[in-house]
């Protein structure tokens, strides 16, 4: 059937900010869906609050609203744009839930908007546990014995019937938030209470535990005419019990016979037929390892993280095909753009193995409880392709950027067998390494399988890797034979691992390989196992016979991607990589991308001219560079992942476009950089490295309190603290030196000033600053966690000139060609520099969108030799808008990570961001806060305050403003007394540390709308403040830990802003 011609204007809802359980995969699928619809001549209206996305680019949709994702704001957009259709399934769970909400509230009916693709009734049937179970019973598909309950008591009764352990799954939450496995009744009560609270419909499912069964997923498609196909199936190496987002997954399944494979395939297809799915759907199935017994776990009637993975694993664009189905096409009418030969009704077949490994944030959240379970905790993932399991797995390990180039984990080598066993049984992020270490100590494979439920098929493979590693340790370099070396390379061993075990330099192994001609070749991912000639320029490396890459004689450039999404390096860098590719393409240069993140737009098959799905390590990129012989490589856009390759590029004489590796080093090396600042006469907060407590106290006295202290050996603000007095500092130093007497502590003067951030372009002669950004929160909070204002509100024109001047000096001195990011502090009318990054930064997408300066395009052109003055955007500071404000607000996933500090500080914690735009700064802030999920307390709401002593004066000022508006206060005794002094009465509650439970009770009761808590010390789970903050976040009570944020809330409250008072803006017209 041809497409439905009555569809003329389609509304697409994005997935909003990146949070755990909902990451970049929805930018990838959303972008693909928008393009698939737009190319049919249909108008696309897009709403997404996340500015760091390709889908919110002007080229992707016709009308773009970067507005809060709430039904109120969506109604505004619908009323203004009057779309005739809504595509529900491409914006993750957020988009799906909103579509259901718009339907339930009658908004879709009111404005005559129909849902295309999978219908609301089908979504509800698939998502509602009870409805789904009834449907499964009807079509004879087995489900796990379970019951939906609405109270803890009901749960306890049912669990007694089915026995423990029992699984708790809340309805309608992201990534299984709030779920868990209860081993005892006590645990059940606890998990159940939190699950009920988090569920939108106040329901949780209690089910029989099938831990240890194989977890198998099928990605399936269906059109409205009833044609069904399977795109891919996947097997979780970690069996049921660990969330699939936290599992190591292999595609296709490895241990299923054809009978099992077809049985589950058939079940999946029968289910989507019965549900009347129109588009893509994910089906999760548990399979008993010792029989044909299986049970359907759940379905996701939308594109998902798994569907993004399946798309990248097979080359089948699920989101694109889903969008076409929604327009009325049948699967046999949609061409497979990957092969250009087959149609979308062709089932992909793989002739390689794909491994996905999650990337967890525990390097940043070192206090977090790392136990993996039914709640997802990974922020991102990597995918690796090989033509044997071992190579895909080992490539995967080194793609994670956790310092692992082999299967041997140094830290775990020091653990006892008992400790290792504990970590393998309870499963945390390092389980796989603990498992390897056990095998290394000859622990029985069979027993490992018994403990973990892993199939011995995989454990045999792990054991083989470990055995080779141990064998290598016994070898001398001269013992290596071409045959053995080739064997290891075929199985994915890195030069670094091989050289490390033998005890030689990585270069030695590489040179030996080159001498023996042991070099990788590249194979194509073509969806069809080589049966048809394919067009896809999508490759992975193997040590094999035939190389399928055709190297053109065109001028080409390689862009290094940014790897997995993690705290501090998110989707923004993928945005930059994609834009660099687009800029190069426009100039007729052949583009090549190397990346390993399956969730991204950069790894979509049609983004670049060639895609290499490979780890971003020296060795892996080197062979591609040797092969392709590019004019140069671009490192500036792939975050630290790409910048880390600079040294190697320099060593191997690989041409780097833009800022040269030596200059990168000058910016990143503290001493070299200090020398530059000295020379340029630019100030930075005074600081010193100290080796002893007394010395530290002395230095602090000289610097004046407060001071910023941190260990010298860690990056990214880890372990950083602001201390206000000697006693506090002493405690910190004593602790720190006790832990590690070998390394110095850095003490810097802490300037409690205004933080300012600048992204600038430099061509060697001139600079262009697209925008100067002001942070709402004062210095001391990581820039990634600050609310960022553009244009700035409080920076004088004098100061702006100073900033321009300083930026120019530094950029020129560092010989920046392309991008630089600088963070400043304005303190007592003086400008200080705190950080320089010789690369693109996380604010680039945001500032590009709100200024309309195509920053990456310009930067890429500068790297290619053009000059800024010829590019049409001038030099110096780009003119700032007068009546338009855009605020970037960070978004956190801390509620998903047990035992993680909530309060803002020098360590970055946010996973994503949203944008608020408005004609006034208050309007922009209001929308930013709403979009970030901050619940603005209503007038006469209740604020609960516990404020540390250094902040109390300032707090009182803001409290007065809230009190005037009619807000009520609850406070601990000290704060309450202070409030009394200004005539504000507060209900007093007892302190936790004094044995009272009042605080936690009042938070849980729902009586409090907003918790204001300024911390004395972070990251200490035993302290009151930490407990209060965790409790609030787990009870979904709004928390503010910075008085600057609170002040902004007071501004908004005073203006009386609400949904009906604010406008929405089409970003294409700004």
């Amino acid at each position, binding site marked *: 059937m041809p497409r439905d011609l009555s569809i003329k204007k389609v509304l697409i809802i994005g997935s909003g900010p990146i949070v755990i359980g909902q990451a970049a995969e929805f930018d990838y699928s959303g972008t693909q869906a928008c393009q698939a619809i737009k190319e049919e001549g249909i108008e696309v209206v897009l709403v997404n609050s996340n500015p760091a996305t390709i889908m919110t680019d002007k080229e992707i949709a016709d009308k773009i609203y970067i507005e809060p994702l709430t039904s109120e704001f969506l109604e505004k957009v619908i009323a203004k744009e009057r779309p005739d259709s809504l595509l529900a399934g491409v914006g993750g769970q957020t988009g799906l839930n909103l579509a259901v909400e718009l339907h339930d509230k009658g908004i879709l009916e009111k404005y005559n908007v129909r849902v295309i693709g999978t219908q609301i009734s089908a979504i509800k049937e698939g998502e509602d546990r009870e409805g789904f179970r009834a449907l499964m019973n009807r079509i004879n598909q087995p489900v796990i014995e379970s019951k939906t309950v609405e109270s803890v008591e009901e749960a306890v009764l049912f669990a007694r019937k089915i026995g423990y352990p029992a699984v708790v799954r809340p309805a309608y939450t992201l990534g299984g938030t709030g779920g868990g496995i209860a081993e005892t009744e006590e645990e059940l009560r606890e998990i159940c209470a939190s699950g009920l609270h988090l569920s939108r419909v106040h329901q949780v499912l209690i089910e029989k535990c099938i831990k240890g069964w194989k977890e198998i997923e099928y990605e399936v498609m269906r059109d409205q005419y009833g044609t069904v196909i399977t795109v891919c199936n996947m097997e979780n190496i970690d069996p049921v019990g660990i969330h699939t987002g936290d599992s190591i997954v292999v595609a296709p399944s490895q241990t299923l016979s*054809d009978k099992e494979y077809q049985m589950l395939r058939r079940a999946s297809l029968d289910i989507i037929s019965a549900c009347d799915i129109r588009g893509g759907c994910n089906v999760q199935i548990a399979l008993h390892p010792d029989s044909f017994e299986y049970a359907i776990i759940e379905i996701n009637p939308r594109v998902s993280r798994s569907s993004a993975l399946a798309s990248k694993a097979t080359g089948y664009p699920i989101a694109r095909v889903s969008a076409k189905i929604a327009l009325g096409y049948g699967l046999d009418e949609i061409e497979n753009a990957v092969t250009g030969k087959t149609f979308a*009704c062709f089932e*992909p077949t793989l002739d390689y193995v794909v491994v996905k490994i999650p990337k967890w944030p525990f390097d940043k959240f070192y206090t977090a409880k790392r136990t993996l379970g039914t709640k997802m905790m990974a922020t991102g993932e990597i995918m690796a392709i090989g033509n044997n399991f071992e190579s895909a797995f080992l490539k995967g390990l080194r793609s994670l950027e956790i310092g692992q180039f082999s299967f041997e984990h140094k830290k775990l080598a020091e653990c006892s067998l008992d400790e290792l066993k504990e970590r393998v049984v309870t499963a945390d992020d390092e389980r796989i390494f603990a498992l390897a270490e056990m095998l290394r100590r000859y622990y029985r494979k069979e027993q490992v399988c018994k403990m973990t439920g892993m199939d011995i*098929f995989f454990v045999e493979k792990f054991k083989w890797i470990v055995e080779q590693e141990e064998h290598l340790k016994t070898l001398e370099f001269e013992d290596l034979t071409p045959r053995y070396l080739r064997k290891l390379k075929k199985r994915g061993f890195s030069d670094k691992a091989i050289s490390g075990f033998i005890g030689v330099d990585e270069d030695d192994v590489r040179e030996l390989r080159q001498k023996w001609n042991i070099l990788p070749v590249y194979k194509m991912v073509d969806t069809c196992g*080589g049966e048809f000639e394919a067009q896809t320029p999508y490759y992975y490396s193997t040590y094999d*016979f035939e190389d399928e890459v055709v190297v053109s004689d065109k001028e080409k450039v390689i862009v290094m991607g940014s790897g997995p999404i993690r705290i501090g390096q998110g989707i923004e860098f993928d945005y930059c990589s994609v834009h660099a590719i687009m800029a190069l393409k426009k100039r007729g240069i052949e583009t090549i991308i190397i990346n390993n993140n399956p969730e991204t737009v950069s790894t979509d098959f049609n983004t670049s001219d060639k895609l290499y799905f490979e780890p971003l390590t020296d060795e892996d990129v080197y062979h591609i560079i040797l092969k392709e012989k590019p004019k140069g490589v671009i490192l500036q856009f792939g975050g630290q992942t790409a910048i880390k390759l600079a040294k190697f590029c320099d060593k191997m004489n690989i041409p780097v476009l833009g800022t040269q590796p030596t200059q990168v080093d000058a910016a990143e090396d503290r001493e070299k950089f200090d020398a530059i600042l000295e020379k340029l006469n630019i100030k930075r907060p005074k600081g010193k490295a100290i080796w002893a407590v007394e010395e530290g106290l002395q230095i602090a006295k000289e610097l004046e309190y407060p001071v910023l202290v941190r260990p010298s050996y860690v990056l990214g603000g880890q372990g950083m603290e602001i201390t206000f007095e000697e006693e506090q500092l002493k405690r910190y130093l004593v602790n720190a030196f006790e832990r590690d007497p070998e390394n110095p502590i850095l003490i810097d003067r802490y300037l409690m000033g205004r933080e300012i951030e600048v992204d600038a372009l430099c061509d060697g002669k001139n600079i262009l600053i697209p925008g100067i950004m002001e942070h709402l929160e004062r210095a001391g909070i990581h820039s990634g966690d600050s609310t960022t204002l553009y244009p700035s509100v409080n920076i004088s024109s004098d100061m702006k000139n100073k900033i321009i001047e300083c930026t120019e000096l530094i950029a020129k001195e560092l010989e920046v060609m392309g991008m630089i990011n600088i963070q400043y502090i304005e303190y007592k009318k003086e400008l200080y520099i705190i950080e320089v990054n010789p690369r693109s930064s996380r604010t680039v997408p945001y500032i590009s969108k709100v200024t309309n300066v195509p920053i990456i395009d310009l930067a890429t052109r500068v790297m290619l030799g053009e000059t800024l003055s010829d590019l049409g955007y001038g030099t110096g500071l780009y003119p700032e808008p007068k009546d338009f404000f855009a605020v970037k607000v960070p978004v956190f996933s801390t509620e998903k990570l047990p035992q993680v500090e909530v309060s803002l500080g020098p360590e970055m914690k946010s996973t994503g961001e949203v944008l608020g735009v408005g004609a006034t700064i208050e309007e922009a802030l209001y929308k930013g806060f709403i979009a970030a999920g901050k619940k603005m307390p209503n007038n006469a709401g209740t604020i609960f305050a516990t404020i540390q002593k250094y902040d109390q004066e300032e707090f009182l000022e803001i409290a007065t403003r809230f009190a005037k508006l009619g807000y009520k206060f609850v406070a601990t005794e000290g704060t309450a007394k202070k409030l009394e002094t200004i005539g504000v009465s507060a209900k007093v509650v007892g302190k936790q540390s004094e044995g009272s439970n009042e605080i936690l009770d009042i938070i849980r009761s729902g009586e409090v709308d907003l918790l204001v808590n300024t911390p004395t010390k972070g990251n200490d789970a035993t302290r009151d403040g930490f407990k209060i903050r965790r409790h609030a976040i787990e009870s979904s009570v709004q928390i503010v830990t910075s008085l600057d944020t609170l002040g902004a809330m007071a501004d908004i409250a005073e203006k009386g802003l609400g949904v009906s008072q604010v406008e929405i803006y089409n970003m294409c017209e700004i």
Partner: protein
Amino acid sequence: MKAQLILENGMVFEGRAFGYLKEAIGEVVFNTGMTGYQEILTDPSYYGQMVVMTYPLVGNYGINLDDMESYKAHVKGFIVREKCDYPNNFRCELTLDGYLKAQKIIGLEGIDTRSLTKVIRDHGTMRGIISVRELTPSQIKLKIDSFVNQHAVSEVTTKEIYEIEGDELHIAMVDFGVKQNIIREFKKRNCKITVFPAFSTSEEILNVNPDAVFLSNGPADPKDLPSVIENIKKMVGVKPITGICLGHQLLCLALGGNTGKLKFGHHGSNHPVKDLISNRVYITSQNHNYHAETLPQGAVVTHRHLNDQTIAGMYAKDLNIYSVQFHPEACPGPTDTEHIFDEMINVMYGKELEVCQEI
């Protein structure tokens, strides 16, 4: 042990031999299924062929006694990138290596199977030798030229007539190398089946007074079976006839149509076929090098292969003849077209072919 695959165009792929270490000659074809190697090995239609699996890891779940498609393995050789030495599955009874040894079939592993697949794709199906010793060019030529597969059917058909009990439709099944699951599917539908050797005469077949005749799948070129075609002609119009794969091709020839050879055949579990009556697309299991090229008069196309638009099913209403090129019995592959058996049974009862509704 080192071994090599030598193709008739002179290309050589070096790898390691496993299974039964004895040289073999056959037609090299590739199969794109990611599972189902056991069913492939024991499918009599592969008689005379060496199968290359495009999926790189083979043997992961071992071999069991339940999933056999016939009493033995029929391939001449089995070529994989990597055989699994430590298989695991709750039904795993033998290893791939052990099974091939017992069946006296040579295996070859460790070659670039993707590269080989592309060679076959580009050059068409070729004959090849898996050898464990060096051969001279003249030896190679001699061996390859001596390979013929014209008597494949007589090698795999049943030697004797046998009967399978059932209460309903009585089917005379002509066995050209029938897959067990075809029999299981009819049995499941309570048919009584009398299985005949391929070269039984029409008199012998009609003598048991069946309700209908079914022509099974089988190996090689239908045109190598002129006597069988003549025999079928005698039954056309007398009894309803249905057929699968080779049976379909034989029906086409018997009715006056023509068959041809595909460049590299269809071998896999992911072939989209459009049912032209219901307009739905089904994913099918396929295994054939030959196909019905032009249909006889009076027959209509019921199914079309969507990759290359070849005919995948035909129906001659007046003669009560219905046959398909693909394998509704699956094993290996998807069971999506299982309803074809119901349709066939209807036709064999003398009813008109209707669209079979599925959930």
